[in-house]
């Protein structure tokens, strides 16, 4: 299967002023992140607030400029294209945001909101041709066609999110980045939108980069998962492996933190100590070591690299796993996990 999106050694540092006299420092929002998304596949990036998952999405979209790294869309390099040239690439790369209230222009009718990308990309010759496509898109997201003439404020949160999805689908993209696209919705509506994403993917063969903090939703709809902590991917693998046999202590703690909707469930919870350290001054060595129950001397000194554990591509960045993995990865390291 070919990759729609490939990201190598992506870094995004933000300059910040620290202290009273403006000592300059850098926030390492994304630090050496590599992954790929295959056609028709969903890759989810999960992690807590501040882990850099949204910055990854924004960098791929070129809403923020990457500090370093390479991004390829359908084999075309994205990060070096002059910003004017991005227009052509954005046809293939669309986004759905978290907040359906602020991501739609309140003064445009639903028809105009969805027609805008069609017009921008020259995807219709006449008004009626565009209207037909808009009607078609409304069908796809299960909204009534008479929604066209109405304004965003007339719709509920879930319906607005459908409008946002229709707009993203309009230019027939290969991949949609969903940045917390269902997080702001109520439980009953969330299920509708999750099901819609699943249906659309099957119908259209879309690839999705699903950025979310909600692991139960992610497990439900994803194919593969990347877990981020303080700007780095600490574990990546297919859904079954990550959720049934997580390798990284952080993934394990994250999964055990999720409350289970069953009062009789036996809880074997690992409550993490403390909180996420500042990304301005991340801990030396392994960034998770300050909260890790298994940390030992080496963790403070040496940063663990992602190493491949299985042939299916399960990778973990943890010293505990290196010895186990060393044998089967020797001489077989993929370009994905090589430092630049």
């Amino acid at each position, binding site marked *: 299967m070919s990759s729609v999106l490939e990201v190598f050694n992506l870094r995004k540092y933000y300059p910040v002023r620290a202290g009273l006299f403006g000592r300059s420092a850098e926030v390492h929002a994304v630090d050496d992140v590599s992954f790929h998304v295959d056609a028709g596949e969903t890759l989810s990036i999960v992690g807590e607030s501040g882990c850099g998952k949204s910055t990854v999405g924004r960098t791929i979209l070129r809403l923020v400029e990457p500090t370093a790294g390479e991004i390829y869309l359908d084999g075309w390099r994205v990060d070096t294209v002059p910003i004017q040239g991005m227009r052509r690439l954005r046809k293939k790369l669309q986004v759905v945001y978290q907040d359906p209230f602020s991501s739609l222009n309140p003064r445009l009718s639903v028809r105009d909101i969805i027609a805008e990308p069609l017009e921008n990309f020259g995807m219709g010759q006449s008004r009626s041709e565009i209207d037909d496509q808009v009607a078609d898109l409304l069908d796809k997201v299960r909204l009534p066609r008479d929604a066209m003439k109405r304004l965003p404020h007339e719709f509920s949160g879930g319906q607005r999110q459908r409008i946002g999805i229709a707009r993203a689908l309009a230019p027939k993209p290969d991949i949609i980045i969903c940045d917390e696209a269902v997080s702001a919705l109520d439980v009953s509506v969330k299920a509708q939108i999750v099901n819609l994403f699943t249906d659309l993917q099957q119908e259209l063969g879309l690839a999705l980069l699903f950025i979310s903090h909600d692991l139960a939703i992610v497990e*439900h709809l994803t194919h593969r998962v990347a877990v981020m902590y303080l700007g780095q991917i600490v574990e990546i693998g297919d859904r079954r492996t990550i959720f049934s046999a997580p390798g990284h202590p952080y993934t394990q703690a994250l999964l055990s933190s999720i*409350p289970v909707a069953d009062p009789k469930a036996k809880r074997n919870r690992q409550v993490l100590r403390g909180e996420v350290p500042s990304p301005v001054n991340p801990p030396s060595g392994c960034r998770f070591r300050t909260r890790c129950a298994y940390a030992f001397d080496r963790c403070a000194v040496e940063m663990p690299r992602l190493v491949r554990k299985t042939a299916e591509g399960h990778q973990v960045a943890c010293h505990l796993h290196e010895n186990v993995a060393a044998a089967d990865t020797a001489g077989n390291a993929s370009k994905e996990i090589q430092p630049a």
Partner: protein
Amino acid sequence: MVLLNVEHLSTVFPTSRGDLRAVNDLSFRVSKGETVAIVGESGSGKSVSAMSIMRLLDESRCRLSGKVELKGRDLLSADEAAMRAIRGNQVGLIFQEPMTALNPVVTVGRQIAEAARLHETMTRRQAAEKAIEMLTLVGIPDPRRRANEYPHQLSGGMRQRVMIAMALICRPELLIADEPTTALDVTVQAQILDLMRSLREQFGSAIILITHDLGVVAEMADRVIIMYAGRKVEEGTAEEIFAHPRHPYTKGLLGAVPRLGSSLEGRSGRLVEIEGTVPDPRVATVGCAFAPRCRGAADICRLSQPGLIRTRSDHEVACHFATELVVA
């Protein structure tokens, strides 16, 4: 022993487009030491009912009716001075957004001390010591230094700990927690839930937990109240509600939440959907408010509002078909 008794509580906001019935004929009881979860989606009236009970709404803009009794004492007729003596003393409050609930220009230590001095006579120094004691209790590292910091210097999880410290400093018999962990990351949420559980044991406080997160409910609650469009549609023990939900809305909610472990069970990729959206609370409904979204709705549902039916000694449901479902 019944600590809080709420009977036929209604909260109505008159608007230019008609009366908005945020809470409609709500009755429930909270016993000493018990944790009751009020569950619902946005607009279900769960937060407004808590605000009404504590008389925190601007009453020039809404009408409260019904009865709210705290240990036999009527709260709806109490004056503001009496309410102030109750809030923070007999009843502690925790809100979702600790950043807006804390004063940004006062150190957290002083804010906690202030809460203590409002209700008990003690010197500033004693109150400050008590504040540090509380900060230690809620697990804030280096409490003596943290007490001198301002809210913006603390992380979200720490701020929520400060809120809990403030709510518990007078050892309230009832704690009302409105979405206490919604704004927090899961690992921090786990810490805060752990903390609430251990403090509940230590202080013996009853808790009203308002949330939309069924996972949090399952972990914390003894009893569960499900609200929809301002009304209680189901109430029962947590075990009963999760194992044998009777109301179609409750069933829908439980099915709409994906559970961890779904990939192992090889379940197909669809969640239960509740079609449509929550109704506009300004539009008065004749029948059951859930009928337009209910797959089992019949004519009677659109014509008459179902009353609460007791299907078991510890289980109430507002559905015309509740008893039939029991038989089925």
